[in-house]
């Protein structure tokens, strides 16, 4: 077949290409988050003193840092699925998140007497945390990867990792409502581990499912 023949076929197929990639991504989030919330409600549920805790700075910080990570990774994903789009600004924004977390850790180290450092770092619920975050993230990761198959990531592995960061961050924000450990020391260790697991799974899924 000559290239001109192919171009004739492509021209004849010029119909409305459908919803934008952002619209598809957003449409996938709703069922993904919903399933994650239902899983959360039937397994762990929010902690008993949830309302009282909302006044506590450490408790609020957990949501700030996880939702900030979700926002920054989503913005980077939107760029990664568009060929040739610049990602510099979005990568810089994503790097700010661990810096914010490091600021929280530093403040905690200043505020806490030294003997409390280890107990707060270990916490009471570490293993539940690194198991729960991937568990709640899975429906969201699957939905997001499916939506992103409409994109054109020139680096499917990296796109999968950042999608995993996003799903893990949203799952971590959901889990934070149950988690009795509020110290930034705990968040920096266990939340990061849980999210890292999701990012790794996302990387593998991306390499398989996001090629085009």
């Amino acid at each position, binding site marked *: *077949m000559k*290239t001109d023949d192919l171009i004739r076929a*492509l021209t004849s197929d*010029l119909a409305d290409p459908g919803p934008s990639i952002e619209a598809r991504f957003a449409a996938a989030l709703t069922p993904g988050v919903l399933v994650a919330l239902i899983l959360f409600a039937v397994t762990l549920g929010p902690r008993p003193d949830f309302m009282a805790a909302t006044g506590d700075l450490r408790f609020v910080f957990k949501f700030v840092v996880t939702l900030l990570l979700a926002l920054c990774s989503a913005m980077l994903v939107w760029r990664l699925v*568009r060929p*040739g789009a610049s990602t510099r600004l979005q990568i810089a924004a994503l790097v700010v998140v661990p810096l914010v977390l490091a600021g929280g850790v530093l403040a905690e180290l200043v505020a806490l007497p030294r003997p409390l450092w280890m107990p707060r770092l270990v916490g009471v619920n570490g293993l539940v945390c690194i198991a729960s975050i991937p568990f709640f993230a899975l429906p969201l990761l699957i939905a997001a990867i499916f939506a992103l198959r409409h994109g*054109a990531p*020139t680096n499917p592995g990296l796109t999968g990792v950042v999608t995993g960061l996003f799903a893990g961050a949203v799952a971590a924000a959901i889990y934070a409502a149950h988690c009795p450990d509020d110290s930034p020391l705990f968040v920096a260790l266990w939340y990061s581990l849980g999210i890292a697991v999701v990012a790794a799974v996302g990387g593998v899924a991306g390499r398989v499912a996001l090629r085009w």
Partner: protein
Amino acid sequence: MSEHDIDGLMRAAMSGDAAAYNRLLTSLAPVIRSVARRGLARAGLAVEEAEDVVQETLLAIHLKRHTWDPSMPLGPWVRAIARNKMIDAMRRRGRRDHVPIDDVIDTLAADAGEPTPLPGRLDAHLQSLPDRQQSVVRAISLDGASIRETATKLNMSEGAVRVALHRGLAALSVKFGAKE
């Protein structure tokens, strides 16, 4: 054609202007071809395969056109897709290049005669499409039939022709990307 012109053509195409789309793809093809030839030559591969890369890239441009952000210039988007398809093609070549020495000698002997034009990969992929999609893609591309003429000829509705054409093109793109 300037970068500014191709942006305008693409914008017109995205709002349904088929003539603008045809002009755009026709003017992109030689640009992609020269990039592909240069890339293949630099990698020490056969320049004749450039047309496969051109066709695979045009298919990808078509099927992924919704990932172009109209507020951005089209050039970098096209180049990124072309580069990506080029790398894919080279990876596939890398896997296929381990051929026994006897085959090489046969090839060298055959090369002594009149060079016969090789059928491109697109033709091979086209043959492996389901009958319905294959007839529709052939009628529109090779015979130059319109959607309506194809519908009459194949006794299908125009809607069914459109669906078969789109699915056929998407399947061709997948076949290009598949491991061999």
